């Protein structure tokens, strides 16, 4: 056991801007963003997740929400793993009875965004600096307490990474990111 640290942080340490470039095991596997339209049926999340886990893919983030059509949901999965098996995995996802379609947005022309909530321990001089950073990134202070702030920031994952990297690691008490959501540009299908 390492010595106890006085600051409570998330179990997963934030490693700044490298977070978006490499897989958790440190290998340089590219991240993929896969959008799925699924039937809102029991078990669909497990079935989708199993396609990833069976092939050794790690899901970095996963967003599930109701779609425009009743009874259907949207899933946006950001994942890392061997790119050579990605296309086969997408076919296997598409093959699931409850999956209407699967689109890999890794390199397509799509708009993507993410939201982060960051709880920062700060007071005095530190606080002024945090507020400056927040202003620069157009982050909103959604909780203003004596010893801490909560910042809400949205935008591309890179922007969120950049903001997080500027805040001293030991001051970040908690970090929650929504995970990326994407939408294809123009009238293309997501």
């Amino acid at each position, binding site marked *: 056991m390492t010595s106890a640290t006085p600051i409570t942080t998330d179990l997963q340490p934030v490693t700044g801007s490298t977070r978006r470039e490499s897989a958790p095991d440190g290998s340089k596997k590219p991240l993929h963003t896969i959008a799925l339209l699924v039937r809102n049926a029991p078990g669909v999340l497990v079935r989708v997740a*199993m396609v990833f886990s069976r092939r050794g893919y790690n899901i970095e983030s996963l967003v599930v929400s109701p779609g425009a059509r009743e009874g259907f949901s949207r899933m946006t999965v950001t994942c890392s793993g061997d790119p050579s098996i990605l296309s086969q995995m997408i076919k296997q996802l598409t093959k699931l*009875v409850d999956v209407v379609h699967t689109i890999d947005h890794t390199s397509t022309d799509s708009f993507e965004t993410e939201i982060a909530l960051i709880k920062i321990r700060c007071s005095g001089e530190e606080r002024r600096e945090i507020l400056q950073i927040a202003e620069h990134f157009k982050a909103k202070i959604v909780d203003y307490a004596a010893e801490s702030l909560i910042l809400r920031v949205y935008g591309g994952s890179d922007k969120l990474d950049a903001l997080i990297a500027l805040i001293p690691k030991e001051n970040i008490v908690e970090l929650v990111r929504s995970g990326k959501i994407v939408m294809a540009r123009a009238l293309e299908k997501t």
Partner: protein
Amino acid sequence: MEARLPTGAEKLIQCLECEGVEYIFGYSGGAAMPIFDALVDSDIELILVRHEQGAVHMADGYARASGKPGVVLVTSGPGATNTVTGLLTAHMDSVPVIVLTGQTISSMLGKDGFQEADVTGITYAVVKHSYLVKDPADIPRTTREAFHIATTGRPGPVLIDLPKDVTQAPCDAPFVDEVDLPGYSTPTHGDPEAIRQAAGLLSSARRPLLYVGHGAVISNAGKAVVRLAERLRAPIVNTLLGKGAADETHPLHLGMLGMHGTAYANKAVDACDCIMAIGARWDDRITGKLDEFCVGAAKIHIDIDPAEFGKMIQPDVAIAGDARLVVEELIQHVEPSDTREWLEQCQTWRERHPLKYARQGGLRAQHVLDRLNHVTGGNAVITTDVGQHQMWAAQFCLATTNRHWISSGGAGTMGFGFPAALGAQLACPEKKVWAVVGDGGFQMTQAELATAAIHKLPTKCLIINNNFLGMVRQWQELFFENRLSGVDLVGNPDFVKLAQAYGIKAWRIRRSADVDRILSQAHEYDEGPCVVVAEVVKEDNVFPMIPAGSPISGMIIEKPRNPLARPTGST
């Protein structure tokens, strides 16, 4: 007085009747009692098995022999988990099986109730699709969807988990004809452009080869495949599960390819300049070392499941569609090229490297199976278990008719052969059905002797008894310095007495001279099941053999004198 509404269970059975179900293979239990109760008044015949694994294999054999879905009914908890091996077997080999599992009452789900198991959770990885029914009103729609999904596209098992309160409650939902599955589509006719490209590659090939798999059996593509082969003057090979699609006695047919395929089939695979997979998935038993498989040959892949394209082999042309429809369309577009040299070469290989076995030194399994092929004349349905006997049966029992060869391929499930034969017998009451099994696998599901006896099924069970797990012993001999471990089946029962204990007729073959006589007697015996126990030599090996992970050129045709390196491929 108003008529009582049917219960969910009664509705379920009515739905099964609408689907044309003749038999349910099942084993009762608490959570399934409402369904078993509803069966009392139904024309559907219950085949009461002795173990749930046997039920799924029977339904599987029924489905493979008939092309119709097999239906299983078991109870919750252990009843349901006992079906998992059968589900895997059906899933790996794309067999339409419907498994109905009783479940504890809805309010007890997730509370560790008696005989509760998270059955949908346990089975996700081994089903094509599954349902947990929460509302009796969903029963007709769920049943219709389950049959549709199980039987269309690439077939597969579908599980329906039915809590007891759902099957007990009244159900007035109407029957459903149409399914609404926006995420589910199945290709039929192939893309015309891809078909033209494939036809171009086949027509310009000098050494074309047709590689036929289970998809050709399922889509009944065999006759079209033979017509295509005749038009192209191209040889045919088939996988273990592709046996029977195209007549194996046809002069253009080179038999089975792969790990224990014929030498001439494998030499043709290694030398061809264009190979077309027809409902086959380039399994590791077929390709050997992937990097060296058919290097330089054009590869065409016909499959109804697009997820197979590029999984093992990157094809030059992929055609998503029903194998029969695609091959029929291909025939319209191909032009035969000059393949005389190629066919002569294949014929030379056939003559130079025939299948062979020792005629002396005791009773040989190959001899028994060679004679079984003679006795049945290729007209019987043959099921097998898994192991040496399976490979020898595949080599020597030539399949001439679609759905007459039934074997567990992908999963390699020991215990499959005998119950599958009982299911096949129910599907084909007029046909002779032989189960070829080893002494190891047979003992895994031998309790179904009772099922065979009760229903007086005239199925013949040929036990190739070498008192060993022969295939593993063969590997230990060849690759592990003959350090035998976990393969000696000392303690086998006397299988003749075992059969007799169930009131089943049984013969024993000890001498080669008795083979024909006893096999013929068993073949003609139709008063009920019978068992033939062939006491074969303890140690014998299946050749040819391509060690796992080796390229096809590393095929061993006869027992090598020197020790071999351990295989690099899986199992």
